């Protein structure tokens, strides 16, 4: 999916981008590509783990104003963990199948979150 985002590139990042001749856009794309629960949790020591760790740290530090549905979160995280564990056990394929199965769980979680929000809006009508 492609989306346009407008961000303020801080001086420190801008300087580095200029020095090393890298587009800020490239940096963020690279970061975005690596934020992935299915990939991180099937290879926690992989060399691309940092972006997801950064994201997790962000989640850990966030206060409750993001209004995450805790019930859904607990349910789907548990389901996600179990799915990965089962798939990793069953297939000896460096986590390929597990990643796909894990991604499916997250997709369903996302659907559930959207459904929840839509319900909130529709009920208000």
């Amino acid at each position, binding site marked *: 999916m492609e989306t346009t985002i407008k961000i303020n590139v801080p001086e420190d990042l801008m300087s580095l981008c200029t020095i090393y001749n890298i587009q800020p856009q490239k940096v963020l794309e690279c970061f975005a590509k690596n934020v992935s629960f299915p990939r*991180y*949790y099937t290879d*926690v020591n992989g060399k691309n783990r940092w972006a997801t760790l950064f994201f997790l740290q962000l*989640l850990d530090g966030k206060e409750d104003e993001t209004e995450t549905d805790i019930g859904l979160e607990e349910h789907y995280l548990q389901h996600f963990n179990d799915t990965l564990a089962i798939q990793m056990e069953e297939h000896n394929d460096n986590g390929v199948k597990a990643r796909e199965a894990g991604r499916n769980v997250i997709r369903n979680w996302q659907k559930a979150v959207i459904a929840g929000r839509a319900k909130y809006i529709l009920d208000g009508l």
Partner: protein
Amino acid sequence: MKTKTNHHLVHIPLEFRIACSIYKLNPQEVLQIFINHATVYDSTADGYSEGFSEASKTIGLYVVSRRRTANGSHAYDHCLESTALNFKGIHDITKRQIGSAAAKRKSTLCYINELYNTMDRVYTKSDTFYLDENTTLHFTKDFTVMCELHNCYPAEYLENFMSRISLAEMEAKTSLKIPNDNFTMAFFMKIVLGFGMANDEVPDLNEEEIAFVKEATELRVRLFTIRSLQQRKAAFTELYHNRYQQIIN
């Protein structure tokens, strides 16, 4: 067959050993700091005194859970009247509005001395306790009086104190933002930061230790997807156990 517990021996639980070795503390030193801060005064006083309150209330909580003194303290059977007067003296001091906690604690000492001198020792045969052949703990008069008063062996207090120390549990609760009411653990963490220590310099870390700190930091972030306290505790227990194995090998 009922097995007889040897009250002259103290069993040091693995979790406590682990916590001490991770923070390079000597178990004997930690236990001695605990003993030195447990006082009759702080068991009854209302205000908070750093270290003293935690140590004394750890014993208080244990004593309440055991309910051993239905028929009174054995050590004071023979001198109930003077004992009552001494406790009244201590009680009056705790209720005083003026004076610092340290000063008030000090003024209870004359009553503690009296209680110490009049008791018939039942649970504390000596003021020196052998952890092993070469390490000893020294009981304060306050501590000894608290053992006799509540009909408890010193080893019970020590074991109860140690049983409340668990890094894994603390980590799991903190990371799940579950309020932690274990003040004994909070006391231990104060000792980690130098409270009551003769030498409160924080030791430098070697390469292996730095690697462990990094590993632990990453694990704390990774465990985000685990929302159950039990599972998180298990993960931290594994981390610390592995590290402990590394340290002792």
